[in-house]
């Protein structure tokens, strides 16, 4: 274990680590573009130069291995000047597109320029023109002029997805990123290239021009797109949620996440949501407040208590919610007819070798755990038989939050609507539900962004999430709905619950100069 000194601080690093890794370990700042902890070392951007005592020339930190007793420093004037002129070379052909570039506000070039640059450009030649708005695939757009050729994206497709769609073409200052002819960047991890691109060369089609990044706040949560439970950051403001990016967690997802998981904000936004409770009585639909609707069904459920009452659960809710609703049905409504609605049985155990799993529910393990604890083992065919014979008259459904991953949605609605009375709790709108007639109550639920709870991923890892923001303020969590249905009142949150720890990263404003501009960055809230 060699020891070295980084800017005067002594650290002990693992055998064979590079200086860059030592910098990461100490938390000292070092400028870099091409190095990414999840990829191999390329050493092409030359921005990470640092001084090593006894060595007359600056060395790059990402490709130099630490040896015993090395004294490393990147705070000297010589290094600052070096970084400045390396940056000048990066910016020689830069189109200065910031006004129309989506990366502006979180761009490596802007950040490092404010930190080290601030020079007067000395280039009098014409800039090299390259291709703009190149369509790389269904989700990614390339702007070659902005690219600094760090090769992070090509290394990603080479090393992580092993699909090799991207490559560097031509030579010298005419080098461009591109896809191999006849190919498209269409793998399920393509948007990670957008995240790792330090500049605005690769941008996401989905997020393109929808918001400037300084209007967005970010908070930590986990992805509910599949049972892997990737750790994510959601970017939101008061208009809704705009994008999702991965967050590093070595135990779950590493640095990456899938493109399908990035769509997990679409069913959370207001357009897709059920805003008020709806009740179908003889004549048609009437709207009412969700809490009222849950209270209204309480009397019916009490009178139906016993074997004619069934509960259908999807694995899309939190552990705490299952812990609330399952005992309530067993003890207060005296029924053990509680069934697990499995959405895609055939592909349930699929795995693509990297992250995506066939089980598209975030909490299958959690639901099974609670059901087992209460000794429940009802199979779906029992429910079907009960509904067909008329033995089950009242059905309460905790429907899916993410309806896109429930291909059997319409089929199941048809089946469950055979019950005399149907109470359907769900966060999103659904045409088929609104086409039902008979005694139906729809109750809006909160989505995973709006509540606290625990999800258990495929390998049994419990992950707690905190509330991020509120989209539909009236909607209920399953716990609240259970309490109202059981005839209890909602507890008024005590002070302790109200002032939950804030779900804001401490390092939200990361670079020093951004800290200075914090006021400007935070203020925008249009």
């Amino acid at each position, binding site marked *: 274990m060699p020891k070295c000194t980084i800017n005067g601080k002594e650290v002990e690093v693992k055998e064979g680590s590079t200086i860059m890794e030592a910098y990461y370990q100490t938390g000292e700042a070092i400028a870099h573009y091409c190095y990414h902890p999840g990829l191999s070392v390329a050493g092409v951007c030359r921005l990470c130069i640092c001084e090593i005592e006894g060595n007359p020339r600056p060395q790059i930190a990402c490709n130099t291995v630490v040896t015993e007793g090395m004294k490393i420093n990147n705070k000297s004037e010589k290094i600052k000047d070096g970084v400045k002129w390396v940056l000048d070379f990066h910016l020689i052909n830069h189109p200065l597109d*910031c*006004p*129309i570039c989506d990366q*502006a506000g979180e761009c490596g070039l802007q950040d490092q320029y404010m930190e080290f640059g601030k020079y007067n450009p000395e280039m009098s*030649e*014409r*800039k090299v*023109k390259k291709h*703009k*708005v190149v369509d790389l695939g269904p989700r990614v757009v390339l702007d070659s002029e902005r690219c600094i050729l760090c090769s992070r994206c090509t290394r990603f497709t080479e090393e992580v997805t092993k699909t090799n769609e991207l490559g560097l073409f031509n030579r010298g200052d005419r080098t461009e990123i591109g896809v191999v002819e006849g190919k498209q960047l269409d793998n399920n991890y393509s948007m990670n290239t957008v995240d790792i691109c330090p500049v605005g060369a690769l941008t996401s089609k989905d997020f*393109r*021009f*929808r918001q*400037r990044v*300084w*209007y967005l706040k970010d908070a930590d949560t986990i992805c509910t797109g599949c049972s892997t439970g990737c750790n994510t950051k959601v970017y939101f403001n008061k208009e809704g949620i705009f994008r999702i990016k991965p967050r590093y967690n070595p135990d779950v997802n590493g640095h990456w996440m899938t493109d399908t998981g990035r769509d997990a904000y679409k069913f959370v936004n207001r357009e897709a949501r059920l805003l008020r409770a709806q009740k179908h009585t003889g004549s048609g639909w009437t709207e009412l407040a969700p809490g009222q609707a849950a209270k209204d069904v309480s009397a019916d459920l009490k009178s139906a208590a016993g074997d004619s009452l069934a509960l259908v659960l999807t694995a899309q809710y939190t552990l705490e919610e299952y812990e609330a609703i399952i005992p309530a049905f067993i003890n207060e409504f005296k029924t053990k007819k509680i069934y697990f609605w499995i959405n895609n049985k055939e592909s349930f155990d699929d795995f693509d070798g990297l992250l995506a799993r066939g089980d598209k529910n975030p909490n299958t393990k959690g639901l099974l755990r609670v059901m087992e604890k209460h000794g429940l083992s009802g199979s779906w065919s029992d429910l079907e038989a009960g509904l067909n014979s008329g033995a089950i008259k009242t059905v309460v459904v905790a429907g899916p939050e993410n309806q896109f991953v429930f291909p059997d949605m319409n089929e199941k609605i048809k089946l469950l609507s055979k019950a005399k009375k149907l109470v359907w709790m769900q966060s999103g709108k659904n045409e088929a539900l609104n086409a039902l007639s008979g005694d139906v109550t729809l109750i809006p639920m909160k989505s995973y962004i709006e509540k606290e709870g625990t999800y258990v991923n495929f390998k049994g890892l419990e992950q707690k999430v905190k509330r991020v923001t509120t989209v539909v303020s009236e909607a209920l969590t399953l716990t609240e709905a259970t309490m109202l249905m059981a005839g209890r009142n909602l507890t008024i949150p005590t002070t302790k619950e109200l002032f939950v720890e804030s779900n804001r990263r401490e390092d939200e404003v990361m670079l020093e100069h951004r800290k200075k501009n914090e006021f*400007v960055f935070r203020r*925008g*809230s*249009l």
Partner: protein
Amino acid sequence: MSVVQNTGEKKNWYLPGIFTGLGITMKHLFYNLLNRKKMITLDYPEQKYEYSPRFKGNHILTVKKDGSLRCTACMLCATNCPAECIKITAAEHEDPSVEKYPISYEIDMLRCVFCGFCEEACPVDAIRLGPEWQTPGLSGTNFIYDIQKLAYRPQLKGGILTHVDDEERHKAGI
């Protein structure tokens, strides 16, 4: 807020100020009474005061040579606006050399404080504060100016040409 309490002699120091002020008022009163021709009162609205052409009045969105908006929807004006009265929706332009443009650009004139920060923030000379200032309206919605009003209102006679020309810049290789 803290209040400084004056005690003792200092307490009467406001008196000289008051008498000076009153003196000025009286001077003007007698001057105007004796020289009524030279009085600078305007009979508005028959008579109007000509402000300097640099007066910061209603906004103008400038246009390019082909008559389309110069604005690139970068939202720097909206970010810089202290009254938060600018609302822009950006969209992808079909011409890749334009790339981004605003499909809607609205300024709520009743919230605007005419500070001119938007004009200063704009990187491409797309928004200016023009000299017009008398713009009455009958309802609140008349004061939410959209692109039509900001760029092509009749007073602008087809639009004000911007100083920044992308084509020239591209030709010069910048």
